[in-house]
């Protein structure tokens, strides 16, 4: 087990290195280039040349890359041009927001998708099964941004039930020991703040969770169908165990394996979706932040942000693999 983890961790290195090269080259291929982006709209040729020289942008690429790698490895991701704050501190503030949103979306997706999928498999071939299958395909087919725009228009603008933007009402002063706002509210024992943050999460979480919901539902259904016909389930039934016990102890538990894998694979999709959801709901997370940075040529943010997200993505997948290995002792650790 340990060897498996170490091996997977070692495999991370080339990926992260490759990413850093990719992002590094990409920044330099952007139109305008970093010097122009740094100087902004009032750049003159002389100043551009000056900045290029001062920051070594006129040196050969490998030299520049080495310098970049050294500062990055020392934990310095530079400073945002737009906010003039360090990229690391921005990440520390925004990443928890995105995690909170993603978790809420996953809870929504699993909370509804799992039972739906299970029931669809139980009642295989029934109208419920067909309906939920079509519904899940529809869920995958609705663009997140379209859903988000509609949800916001209906539930906050027209009905006035939920807030339309942001993470917390500005009238609430909440201390942020963790930057996970729900957790902060609990730590501060401020339940009105907790409720407020929760209300801000609902619509974005539904928009972001719609596709995972559909996928979780389908996977659960397929997994339960598969497992149901396995010998040990039949044996359990034959032994006369009550259907409820069989379902909960054997069917669902074994179906958890493929489900956990797909949850891992969804992380990437979730992060993509977060870009759109956060944009529509003006949610101060990491997805909309990087997108804006790309539009504004805020290159330290792009560089640091994408590298960070990618590392997170790879790590999440590693965790999923490990948990998969723990859940399923039959897996071979070797390759």
């Amino acid at each position, binding site marked *: 087990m340990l060897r498996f983890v170490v091996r997977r961790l070692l495999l991370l290195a080339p990926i992260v290195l490759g990413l850093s090269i990719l992002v590094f080259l990409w920044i330099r291929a952007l139109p305008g280039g970093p010097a122009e982006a740094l100087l902004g*709209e009032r750049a003159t040729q*002389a100043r551009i040349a000056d900045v290029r020289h001062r920051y070594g942008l006129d040196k050969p690429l490998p030299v520049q890359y080495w310098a970049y790698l050294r500062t990055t490895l020392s934990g310095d991701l530079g400073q945002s041009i737009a906010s*003039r704050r360090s990229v690391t501190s921005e990440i520390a503030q925004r990443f928890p927001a995105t995690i909170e949103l993603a978790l809420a979306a996953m809870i929504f997706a699993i909370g509804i998708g799992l039972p739906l999928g299970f029931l669809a498999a139980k009642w295989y071939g029934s109208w419920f099964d067909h309906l939920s299958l079509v519904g899940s395909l529809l869920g995958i087919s609705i663009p997140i941004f379209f859903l988000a725009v509609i949800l916001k228009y209906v539930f906050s603008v027209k009905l006035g039930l939920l807030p*339309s933007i942001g993470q917390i009402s500005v009238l609430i002063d909440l201390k942020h020991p963790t930057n996970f706002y729900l957790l902060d509210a609990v730590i501060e024992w401020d339940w009105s703040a907790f409720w407020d943050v929760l209300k801000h999460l609902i619509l974005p979480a539904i928009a972001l969770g719609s596709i995972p919901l559909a996928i979780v539902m389908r996977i659960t259904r397929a997994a339960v169908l598969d497992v149901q016909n396995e010998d040990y389930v039949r044996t359990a039934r034959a032994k006369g165990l009550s259907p409820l016990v069989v379902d909960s102890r054997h069917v669902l538990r074994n179906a958890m394996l493929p489900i956990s894998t797909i949850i891992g694979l969804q992380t990437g999709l979730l992060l993509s979706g977060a870009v759109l959801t956060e944009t529509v709901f003006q949610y101060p997370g990491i997805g909309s932040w990087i997108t804006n940075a790309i539009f504004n040529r805020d290159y330290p943010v792009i560089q640091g942000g994408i590298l960070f997200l990618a590392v997170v993505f790879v790590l999440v997948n590693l965790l999923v693999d490990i948990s998969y290995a723990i859940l399923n002792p039959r897996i071979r650790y070797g390759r």
Partner: protein
Amino acid sequence: MIALVVVGASSGAHKASKAPKAFKTLVFGTASDPVVLDGALVSDGESLRVIDQIFESLIKLKPGTTKVAPGLATSWKTAGGGKVWTFALRKGVKFHDGTKFNAAAVCYNFNRWYNFKGAFQSPDATYYWQAIFLGFHNNESSDLSPSLFKGCKAKGQYSAQFTLAKPFGPFIPALSLTNFAIASPTALKKYGADKAEIRNGIFTPTGTYGFKHPTGTGPFKFKSWTVGEKLEIDRFAGYWGTKAKLGKVIFRPISNNTARLQALQTGEIMGYDLVAPQDYGAIKGNSKLKLLTRPAFNVAYVTLHQGTGSPMNDLKVRQAVAYGLNRTGLINSSAYPPGAVVAKEFQPPQLFGYAKKGVKTYNFDPAKARTLLNSSSCHVPCKVDFWYPSAVSRPYMPDPKRNFEVFKASLEASGFDVTAHTANWRPDYVGKVTNGTAGDLNLIGWTGDYGDPDNFLGVFFGTFSEQFNFHNNQIFNILQKARTETDQAKRVKLYEQANKIIMNYLPAVPYAHTSPALGFKKTVNGYKPSPVSLEPFALVSIGGV
């Protein structure tokens, strides 16, 4: 909807505001966070809006106009042919940190700006100082001109004397800029306002002054700032003038136009700036909301870039463009708010120097444009590259995409073959327009900073610029003369003449003067829109529920 807001307000109140109950809180939606709260170092509207509540300048504008009035200076006089100015200062004024306001404080501020060194001399750091006073005591770059400002001396406690290198017509109105607001010397020193470096190539104040301790004399004092979430200012009880009616103002950044409208509709904010024209109806039709419009003090125009090999070098082609732009159609459509007018000159009509008659006009006339083109060096179909900015809304150009589409269609009906190009507003688009790489035609505009035509005509056509790329000494000379002239009657004549020459020469085609609008809850009273967006929140109150 209302219920939600009230719940939100009361739930937060027990922790949030320490202000007495009688004073209410206003939540105002802004397009973005300020950059830094040091007037000398910013040029963006969102920074200036907040700074303007915390700080005051020597000169004020009468609310809702561009007419100058006493601010921290009560009176002023000039001598030496316009080179020496003496200001009598207001007595009994204190900064938020208790420091006394006097001539020494005024001169400390001006001499601080004049003696800026190193990173502070970069144009993105001190744009307005450089725009008005051109240079510094010790210019470190050959791009800078010798400074127009030569020093400030305290003549007694409450009298400050300024020396200029040469007479400067718009000096007094220029001092009304929020960029020249007076800050507490104690706080400037204590919190390292003069510390900055070019870090990773970006001008970065490294002291905490502009982020945590901006200290002025204004009716509000700085409370806290969480980037991306909110910026709070509190009522300053020791203000010398009429004290603020509100206990607290919270500025909340919401980058998207529609999101701001929706936040106003849901009650998450109580007011916001730059209402999009299409949202006027939604606000007017809502019994709980109201719309306030600013007097038009801007101009939108199409640059006709006379680059090497560009068809725009031919006056006939430029005239064809002017006739080929369906300006009236655009301004009368729902893409522009009611109150917008077709621009005939490059400055707003209410500003002195506007030529009331004798200016060449160009009404939409596709047939005439075609005839002109066929007698020019660029026959029908005349190929042009046309740029517009994406994902941005400006006061003079609320929806650039729609402007572009209308102009593209009308130019194509007039014998042009238009190729579309776009870039994001910052940093690409504005950069490309200013350095002359945004095609033959591009959409751009300007909002005035203070009430002087030099701030319009002088900025655009006062000298050669890569943006327009033309050399016309007749235009350059007349505008330079108007800038240094101090006799008002003569200045009016010069600018009227300049407007006529410019509209014959057509370095660009002006197309709109727009009244930008703000949306508020009906309960918000006392907000007085100003042409230059200097709007004191101190006069605002919230009535009823």
